[in-house]
Each structure stands twice: as C-alpha cells, then as structure tokens.
C-alpha cells in the first residue's frame, strides 16, 4: 500500500503523464524553500519597521537620524542610499531592500544551480531524458518550477509585509507593501535565471554556483561604486542590484525599473534554453580546461583531502568575512552616531556603560556571528555529503577509523571557525582605524573570537545529528539556526520571556566590544558543543554508513 502511494506521488503510475516530472519535482522543492525564506524575509521586514517605529518616536530623533545618514557615502555604498529615512516606510526600505536582495540572490544562485545542474549531476535527469523529455524541455520545466518557487517567495513575503503595514505604527498601504515585496524578490528572480544559465555553462553544480557568485559579486561591487557618489548614480542602471534599488519602493515607486529586470530574466531564461539543447548531458558549454593535470600539491592524507576539498569554499568565506569586516569597521564612527541618535538605543547602551563606535561594532559583529554560523552549517553538510556520496567509503575500507575521520573533520571546522572569527576582528579593526574610530586592537580581536561561539555550538550539535540521524542533518541544523536567528531578531521587538531568549546562542553571546565577553556563557556553549560532538562521534562509530 505504501509502495503504491509512493509511486502515485512521484507520478510514475501509468495514466499520469511523466513528461512534466521535472516541472513537478522542481516546483515542489522550490516552493517549499521559497515559502520558508518568504517567512524569514517577512519577519525581517516586520522587525525592522517595528523597531524603527518604537525606537524613533519623536520628530527630533528622526531628524537627527536623517542628518547623520542622509548623505553618508560609506553607508550608502554598503546598504544603499538613505532616502526618506525620517519615515517608517523610508527607513524600512533602506534597511531591508539591499540586504534582502543580496540574501535572495544568494539563495537563488544556490537553488537555481541545485535544482538544475545539481539534479543533472546526481543522474536523476538521465532516466527522464532517455524517455519523452528532451534536454530543452527539461530546462524549460526546471525554469517553470523555479518561477513558481520565486512566486511562493513573493506571496509569503507580501502577505507578511501587508500584515505588518496595516499596523498603525507602520502604516504602509497594501499596494505599497506588495510593490516593496516585489522589489525585494525581484533580485531572487533574476539570480534564479542566472543560476539556471550558469548550470548550462558549467561542468558541475559547484562550478555553476561559483560562476553565479562571481556575477553577483560583480553586480554588488558595481552597485557599491554607483552608490558611493551622486555623480556615479547612473551606474546603477548597469547592474541588476542597481535596478532593484531604482524601483525605489516605499519612497518614490518607479515601476518602469521593472523593464530591465524582466528583460534580464527573459534573456537568461532564453539563454538557458538555447544552451540546453546544444550541449552533451553532463558536460558544460564552457570547455573543461582542467581535465588534464600537470603538477600541483597533492593531498596525501584524509585531513589534507578534507582541507583541499573545502579550500575554495573556506577561502571564499574568508574573503567575504574580511571584506565585510572592512566595510563594517569603515563606518564605525557613523555607526556609533546612529546609536546616539536613537533615544531608546542610547539608553539601552548607556545602561551598559558604553556608547559610540563600540556600541555600533557590537551590533555589527552580530552579522559576523551569522556568517560564521553559515560556515559551520556548511562544514557539517560537507561531512554528510562525503558520506552520502559514497566517497567516504574509499577511506573507511582502508586502515583509517571512522572516529579519526570525523575528529579530523571537526579539527578542520573548528580551526576554520576560530580563524574566521579572528579574521573578522582584525578586518573590522583595520576598517575602524581607517575611519579614525578609537577602538583597541585587542578588544576587537577578542570580539572577533567571541562571535565564533554560536557557530561552534551549531557545529557541535550538527556532529551529534550526523551521528544519530544523518539524513536529517541539513533540516535539523538549519532549523536550529533559523530558531536562534528568529529569537534574536524578534526578541528585540517583542518582550520575550528570558527563558525563550536564553535558548538562542546569539542571545547568549555578549555584545562585545560594547560589553565584556561572557566567558561563562561561551564556556557553556563550548561544553555543549564538545559533549554533542563527542556523542556524535561515538554514535557515528556504531551505526551503518548511509547513502542519500
């Protein structure tokens, strides 16, 4: 009975068309992911707008904010120009649009390549392509599925934005809220098309994701240049992230900026379909220059292999952490003023005996904690993937124990996380002194180390899940991360019970350098991580090795 219902669900029963299997599968997966991220987007928008409405109640405080940020080139380059930030809609657009556009683009590249090239690499398309489905048709179906996924992201984001806009404190009309949600999601839509297109160009999903990231990076860099000076504003029309900004939702809506966005999506979608019919299955349009090797440094140990395989990803993260640290640090003085300009924030930090740049940097470094958490989650997923792909067996059928493999993986991840934290501290310090902010190197270095603890906790729990329920690793660890994150951002708006707040690792982490590092809380996080990881290793030693 179960077997029959499973067959029925996958559409393999006679009588149900198998021609649209790829569209169905892609739709199912992308809609699910789109809805989850729609909730995160919506909650982020709600938090930012409600925080502003609560923190900047008076006209005077809002005017001060406008004075400090209305024409700040550094901040404008980082998150876009601060238009009408003396109003709730203007501030919400400024705080959310660029941030969510970038997050949406990253999600879109990962999803767009995973559900096209990733499925092909896994060999799941091959069975269908020898039947009634052509390669072009497969690509068309996948694009359709991705479009439905983007729609679900838009719908969920819209619903939450309209709901929060109806609050008298926020007062954003339904039409404006929907247009804002459209602007936020338009970046994801464009980069879903980029992901699908790169999947046709590249020889593997990994290469496709890297190529998509390069396009996103270039787009962001160009937008930064465009936003750094009024004279360069025209450059916004040369980059997808610039078009998103030119929509100017919630301030001066300009729907005609949707034209290049729609054209971009159409061009990349048509390009995807064009290339799909003109390449071999499993191959890329770009020639694979690196199939034949000359001489290079070879990994000769499992740890060396893990480091070698993780190197591109870890280096990319390190570069991001360093660049972001420089940017965040580079506006430390201005950031300090934003704290000062908000009476409620000023009061909150004054109670802790800090103010200015230190207070701002402690908030900014929270972003680094989130970034490092992603590194931790990526390392757990990489370990699981090595097992599920069958590659790990090549090591474990030789005189190399399971425990040694997992412990080496742990050593690699912990080293990467600690170095990442220290790098974040150093980069932020370099940025801060270039902005002539008075911050001590030692305090930022320890603040950088401080942000690694939630990531270490997440990694430790991830190892435990790897030991006990390997097929649930991604679901459980990412859910835990979302839980930590949501509690942290919602806790700043709603008066949450401290028992709930204490359940977030981000909340446990002290706001360093503004406040002294909470070594006890950090020690507890390390202890939980250690115990979890130890149980994880032990359970991993005594279970079956499992595929996908």
């Amino acid at each position, binding site marked *: 009975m179960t077997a029959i219902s499973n067959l029925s669900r996958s559409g393999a029963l006679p009588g149900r068309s198998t021609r649209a299997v790829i569209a169905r599968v892609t739709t199912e997966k992308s809609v699910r992911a789109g809805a989850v991220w729609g909730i995160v987007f919506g909650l982020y928008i709600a938090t930012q707008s409600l925080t502003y409405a609560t923190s900047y109640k008076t006209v005077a405080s809002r005017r001060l904010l406008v004075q400090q940020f209305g024409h700040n080139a550094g901040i404008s380059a980082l998150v876009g120009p601060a238009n009408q930030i003396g109003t709730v809609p203007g501030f919400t657009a400024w705080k959310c649009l660029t941030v969510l556009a970038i997050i949406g683009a990253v999600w879109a590249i990962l999803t767009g390549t995973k559900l096209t090239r990733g499925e092909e690499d896994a060999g799941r398309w091959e069975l269908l392509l020898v039947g009634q489905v052509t390669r072009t048709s497969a690509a068309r179906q996948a694009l359709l599925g991705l479009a439905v996924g983007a729609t679900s992201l838009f719908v969920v984001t819209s619903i939450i934005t309209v709901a929060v806009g109806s609050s008298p404190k926020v007062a954003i009309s339904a039409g404006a809220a929907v247009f804002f949600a459209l602007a936020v999601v338009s970046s994801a839509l464009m980069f879903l098309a980029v992901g699908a297109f790169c999947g046709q160009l590249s020889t593997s999903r990994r290469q496709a994701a890297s190529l998509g990231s390069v396009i996103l990076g270039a787009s962001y860099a160009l937008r930064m240049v465009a936003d750094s000076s009024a004279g360069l504003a025209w450059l916004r029309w040369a980059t997808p992230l610039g078009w998103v900004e030119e929509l100017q939702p919630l301030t001066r809506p300009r729907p005609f900026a949707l034209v290049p966005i729609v054209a971009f999506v159409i061009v990349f979608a048509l390009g995807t379909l064009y290339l799909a019919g003109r390449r071999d299955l499993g191959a890329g349009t770009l020639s694979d220059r690196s*199939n034949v*090797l000359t001489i290079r440094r*070879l990994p000769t*140990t499992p740890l060396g292999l893990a480091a070698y395989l993780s190197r591109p990803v870890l280096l990319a993260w390190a570069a991001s952490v360093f660049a972001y640290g420089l940017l965040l640090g580079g506006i430390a003085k201005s950031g300090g003023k934003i704290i000062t300009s908000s009476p409620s924030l000023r009061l909150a930090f004054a109670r802790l005996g800090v103010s200015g740049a230190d207070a701002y940097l402690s908030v900014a470094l929270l972003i680094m904690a989130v970034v490092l958490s992603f590194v931790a989650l990526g390392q757990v997923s990489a370990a699981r993937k090595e097992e599920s792909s*069958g590659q790990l*067996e090549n090591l*474990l059928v030789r*005189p190399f124990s399971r425990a040694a493999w997992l412990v080496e993986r742990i050593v690699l991840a912990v080293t990467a996380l600690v170095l990442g934290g220290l790098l974040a501290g150093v980069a932020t310090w370099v940025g801060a002194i270039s902005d002539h902010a008075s911050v001590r190197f030692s305090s930022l270095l320890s603040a950088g180390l401080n942000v690694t603890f939630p990531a270490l906790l997440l990694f430790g729990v991830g190892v435990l899940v790897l030991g006990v329920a390997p097929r649930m690793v991604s679901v459980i660890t990412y859910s835990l991360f979302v839980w930590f994150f949501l509690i942290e951002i919602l806790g700043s708006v709603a008066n949450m019970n401290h028992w709930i707040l204490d359940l977030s690792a981000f909340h446990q982490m002290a706001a360093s350098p503004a406040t002294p590092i909470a070594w006890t809380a950090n020690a507890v996080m390390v202890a939980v991580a250690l115990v979890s990881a130890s149980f994880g290793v032990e359970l991993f030693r005594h279970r079956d*090795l499992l595929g996908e």
Partner: protein
Amino acid sequence: MTMPAIETFGLAKNYGTTRALVGLDLQVNEGEIVGCLGPNGAGKTTLIRLLLGLLIPSHGRAEIFGMDSQRDTVAAHRRLAYVPGEANLWPTLSVAETLRLLGRVYGKVDLTYQAELIDRFSLDVTKRVRALSKGNRQKLILVAALMTRADVLILDEPTSGLDPLMEQAFRLCVHEAKDRGQSVLLSSHILSEVEALCDRIAILRAGVLVEMGTMVEMRHLSALTVEVTFSGDVPDVTNVAGVSSVIVQGSTLRCQVRGPVEPLLNSLANSGVRELLSREPSLEELFLSHYGAPADDVANDSNK
C-alpha cells in the same frame, strides 16, 4: 591449522522488518578464491559491507584473519583491499592523486606492481576523475586495491563496466593474487567469470546461504541432463526414482536425473536405446536451478 582469511558466525542483518542476511556461516581460506552468487537483493553486497565494517550486524559477527570486523576494524583493514561495483571517487582529483592518496591511507603500496597495473589496465594517470568513463573509474579503483597486495581481496562486481580485454586483464590479476597466496571473495553476476576463477562457490538467496561448495560438489548434488534416442517406442519413465522434467519429442526423451542414474538405466534396459547422452549442468544451470523454486520455500526453510 591456518586461520581462515574470512569467517562469519551466524552473521545477520535486518533493515526494519526486512531480513537482508540470515544467520550466515561462511569461510574463505587462505589462498582460496570464493565466488558469491545470487540475484539482486540476495544479500551479497550486505555481506560484503558487513565484512568491511560499513554496516553493523544485527546478529553474529565476522572476522578477517581472526580480527573482528567491528571491534578491530582498522587492524582488519590493514590486511584487506576492497573493490566496489561503483567507484564514487573525488571528481576533482587526478588518477595519480587518487592512487597516491589511497596508497598513503592504506600504508603500503607495491610501486613496481602499481606501475605494471597502470600499464596493464591502460590507465591515464594525468586525467581528472571527473573526465573518466565508468569503465576507467572502475579500472582506477581496481588498481588502487590490487597495488596494495593485501592478503584478502573483497571484490563486489569488480568488472562492472569493463570491456572484454580489461576483463581478461582482471582475471590474470586474480590468478596472480591466488598464486601469491592471497585470498579472494568475489561477488559477481558474470557466471563465466566465477566459474573460471573460483575454487568454491557460495549461492545466496533471500539472505540465506543455499549452496556452498566446489563446482564438482555442486554438480554432484545437482541434476544430470540425460537425452535418449530410441529405435522403437519411447518408454514411460515418469515414475522412475530420481527422474524429473521429462520431455518427449518423437523418438527422443529428455529428462533430469537427480541422485544415482542406475534406476533409469535399468528401466531402459529392454527399450531399444539407439543413443544415450548425458551432460553435467553448467554453473548457469546450477544457478538457475536454485532460483526456479518459489522464493518462499527457501525463506520458510531458513526460518525453521
């Protein structure tokens, strides 16, 4: 008395309510090649993964040269090499890098033999794994296992994807391994390969070892095919002891005889036999004879 290379004691594996392997007792002696046959889902790969310690047994245990495959995994692995039916390697590494890495993890490699194997299997060591065909990946994983000169070779459908020339090269390697005193457990669907290489054959069915022995022993236990041509009428032999599957076509009778052939000969003594041919069953016939009966019979037998 020498220690068996591989020995299992009541080895069993359940996946939920599915019994993948049921109380298996198997022995592979030093210098012996044992073939493992069975249809898909018979439990061959489960057996091999239990021997390698990749799966945890539900009951029983397995030993490699007396070392428990679960408790002394690393020590046991120092004496074995494994070839899976499907090579899941690291696509970004080259063939040379893969061989070097796997050799380093194993701890020892016969470099002269490695060079010979690379030549014998026509392996291009400069290529990345992702650029290799399925057959070439299989050759790579074969070389990686054989180059260690491990005391036991555990081979799970090792020639899958290989062309006939490479299959010949593989057979030569296995014969050489045996000559050097290495033991081999070979799981394969290619019956001619098993028949040509193996000293003994184990036949698995629904997780149960239903037959184990040399080809001679197995033929002895199995039916003989007899074909008789008569000058006159064909006699009725359906009630003769040991005779089954009787087919009459004109003046020719074809039947299977299990056990002594004497009762059949006695019954034919006065029937005008013009020609009598008998033939021992091939491995294919032996194999098929074990899978002709409904699967439930064996499963029920094994449960008793």
